[in-house]
């Protein structure tokens, strides 16, 4: 069956609506949102995202009806210059539909959740325009993400890649005027800037990969590139392309060494953290590697580097997560760590495992983040209750606020025993935690085990990956256990925690859906004969994938490790709950190790010293010494200005005044003097005129007579 035939059947013609629906949603909100209520704005945005989900489902359905053959839907001509033929074409294959379903599915749930969340954000002061702006950005993000996953060429992928980067920037700095504690500050704008700059470094690598691809293969269209690469594999060029691409991956998917932006990105509202910085955008790097699988398959060296970067990131970020106190920071480092798992998996060629983990992670990490948002709001409600509990008048707010000390509702040290106050959120959080920790039979168990199994089986070609990932898995369970004990168990460490309140259904219902997915998501790809559904689905795009059976050894070890980690975390944080003001019990035994974890291994400071300081110095040197002192002061002032002045003076004084003006002056002088002389002849004495006449006549006559 060829493409055009396939395109004529099913719902493939709907592909552009993946992008259109979110765009219509955002335009609608932009134009009419100003006069609409918050609920209406949120509903429109959620509907737009939901329609994209419906389109994704229809596309997936049509694809299964055509046995998973890749379908391309040409949409618009874009750039046609000589050899360069770039069109906006939608590529519907089994891989892109999985991504579409995850993005629009999780995205829609988060849209709904955000309706409730944004209303309660302390910084939201019934400003409908802000509210509208948030949903416009969210819809723009969905549209861009759809462009990213549905593009048929590296360039369209890049368009989406940059678009989601822009949305990420806009949403991290959404509260650009307040920090996370509601104080006036530009910290969030700084965080957005940091994310944008770190991503630019990665995007630069990706751009180089695109340039190299076009230079070598003369095309950017996926199939054409892969066909050309397989026909004439040139290891050096393909290694270059894949490694350049890896730089892009480390930027977008927050891998070592460019991951530093993701923890700061938690400055964005929690739905944004869940949608962009956990579930979807950050997985774009993983998607890119899977999409470029035919290239990575050709160069083992580059693949190994990818796998190692993923594994190292997984472990490194997991250690930092152990030492964090902010509930969202823990999850942020956890996300980096889990992205490391995915990147390691796709680096090892375990593409199905990588995508599988991507999907399950999207479910449970979105669940965790949104639950964390619910906890933070619950704490804020408690805080509000305490601050204003005794007077029912909102008018008294103003002078209360000034006296209050800053209270961080996201600090786990302020929480404790929240399962009493927030039972729904507690159970939802538990589901997410168990899924993340990889406890049977939650979704994370299946996907993580598949990655670990792949790592074990490929240990020969990818030495070290398995061990790094296993330790990371152990730490994952440990820090999640720590979080659970600190947040939900023990004694309330602050008054606020005693008065925390549960979130409304608009927030908890989407969480329940996600929780169901986090529990049952593993069913997508059960490692038993006759299942491997995701594997068989992706086979149509990625080529034959061998469905791995459940390896009881690997699964057993990882489960034992996870349980052990949770047990340890109980010993340390659960048995003797943290008291108010007590330092972390790990601080003493681990010593400097914990200090490192607590301070993120001083990576930001290291970058500050190694990159930012020298960069600032270089910038200062360039601006002060080179630009100002050399170019401005010396070159412009001394050379150009003084030289010009000298030339001008030379031309004006000796040349103009000395020669040209002198000539004119002398001429005038001579005329004047000669006229003066001649005027003396006209002396006014008639008799002298008469004498001249006489003399003249005598002279003429004399001449005539004596000639």
């Amino acid at each position: 069956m060829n493409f055009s035939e396939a395109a004529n059947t099913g719902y493939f013609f709907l592909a552009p609506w993946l992008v259109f629906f979110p765009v219509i949603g955002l335009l609608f909100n932009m134009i009419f949102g100003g006069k609409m209520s918050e609920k209406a704005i949120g509903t429109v945005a959620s509907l737009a995202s939901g329609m994209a989900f419906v389109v994704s489902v229809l596309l997936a359905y049509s694809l299964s009806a055509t046995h998973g053959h890749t379908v391309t839907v040409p949409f618009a001509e874009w750039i046609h210059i000589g050899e360069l033929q770039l069109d906006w074409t939608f590529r519907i294959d089994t891989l892109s539909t999985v991504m579409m379903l995850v993005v629009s599915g999780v995205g829609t749930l988060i849209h709904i959740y955000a309706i409730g969340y944004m209303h309660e954000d302390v910084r939201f002061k019934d400003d409908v325009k802000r509210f509208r702006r948030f949903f416009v950005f969210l819809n723009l993000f969905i549209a861009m993400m759809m462009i990213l996953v549905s593009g048929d060429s590296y360039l369209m992928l890049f368009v989406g890649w940059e678009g989601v980067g822009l949305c990420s920037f806009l949403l991290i700095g959404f509260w650009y005027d307040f920090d996370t504690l509601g104080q006036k500050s530009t910290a969030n704008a700084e965080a957005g800037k940091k994310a944008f700059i770190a991503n630019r470094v990665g995007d630069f690598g990706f751009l180089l990969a695109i340039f190299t691809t076009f230079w070598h293969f003369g095309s950017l269209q996926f199939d054409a590139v892969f066909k050309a690469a397989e026909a004439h594999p040139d290891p050096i060029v393909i290694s270059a392309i894949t490694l350049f691409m890896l730089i892009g991956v480390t930027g977008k998917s927050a891998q070592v060494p460019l991951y530093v932006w993701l923890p700061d990105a938690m400055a964005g509202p929690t739905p944004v953290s869940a949608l962009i910085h956990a579930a979807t955008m950050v997985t774009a790097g993983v998607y890119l590697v899977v999409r470029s699988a035919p290239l990575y398959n050709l160069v083992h060296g580059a693949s190994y580097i990818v796998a190692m970067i993923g594994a190292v990131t997984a472990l490194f970020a997991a250690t930092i997560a152990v030492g964090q106190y902010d509930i969202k920071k823990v999850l942020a480092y956890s996300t980096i760590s889990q992205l490391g798992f995915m990147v390691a998996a796709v680096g090892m060629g375990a593409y199905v495992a990588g995508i599988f983990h991507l999907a399950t992670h999207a479910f449970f990490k979105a669940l965790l983040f949104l639950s964390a948002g619910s906890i933070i709001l619950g704490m804020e409600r408690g805080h509000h209750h305490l601050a204003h509990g005794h007077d029912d008048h909102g008018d008294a707010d103003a002078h209360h606020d000034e006296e209050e000390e800053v209270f961080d509702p996201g600090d786990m040290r302020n929480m404790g025993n929240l399962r009493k106050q927030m039972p729904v959120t507690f159970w939802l959080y538990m589901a997410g935690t168990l899924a993340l920790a990889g406890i049977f039979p939650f979704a994370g168990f299946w996907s993580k085990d598949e990655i670990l199994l792949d790592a074990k089986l490929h240990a020969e070609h990818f030495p070290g990956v398995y061990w790094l990932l296993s330790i990371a898995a152990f730490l994952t369970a440990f820090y999640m256990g720590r979080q659970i004990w600190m947040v939900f168990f023990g004694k309330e460490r602050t008054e606020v925690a005693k008065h925390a309140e549960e979130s409304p259904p608009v927030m908890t219902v989407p969480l329940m859906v996600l929780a169901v997915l986090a529990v049952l998501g593993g069913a997508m790809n059960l490692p038993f004969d006759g299942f491997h559904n995701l594997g068989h689905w992706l086979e149509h795009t990625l080529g034959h994938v061998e469905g791995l059976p459940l390896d009881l050894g690997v699964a057993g070890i990882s489960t034992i490790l996870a349980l052990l980690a949770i047990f340890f975390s109980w010993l340390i944080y659960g048995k003797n709950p943290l008291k108010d003001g007590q330092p972390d019990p790990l601080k003493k035994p681990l010593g400097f190790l914990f200090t490192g974890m607590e301070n993120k291994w001083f990576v930001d400071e290291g970058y500050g010293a190694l990159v930012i300081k020298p960069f600032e110095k270089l910038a200062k040197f360039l601006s002060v010494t080179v630009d100002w002192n050399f170019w401005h002061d010396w070159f412009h002032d001394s050379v150009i200005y003084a030289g010009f002045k000298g030339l001008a003076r030379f031309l004006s004084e000796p040349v103009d005044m000395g020669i040209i003006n002198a000539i004119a002056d002398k001429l005038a002088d001579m005329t004047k003097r000669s006229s003066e002389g001649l005027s003396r002849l006209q002396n006014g004495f008639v008799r002298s005129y008469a004498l001249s006449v006489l003399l003249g006549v005598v002279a003429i006559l004399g001449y005539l007579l004596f000639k």
Partner: protein
Amino acid sequence: MEGVSVNYYIGLSAILFIIGVLGVLVRRNALVIFMSIELMLNAANLAFVAFSSVNNSLDGQIFVFFIMTVAAAEVAVGLALIVAIFRTKKSIDVDQINLLKG
């Protein structure tokens, strides 16, 4: 008339003319200058008449009449000018009439 050579007439005419020229150049009184000019005109008349009789032609005689007419008219204009000048400058010294001096 035969007895007297024409040269004498010419000589007298020349002498008269020279006296007239000197009078114009030397004297400052406009009236005297005027008279000197008359002298020169009459010197010319004398020369005309002398050459007319030598050549047996009347042309010279006729010219003299014209000259006397013109001289009369000239005197009329000239005296009128002198009167006008005297009225403004209270003097007819030609050396003081020097408004057009360079």
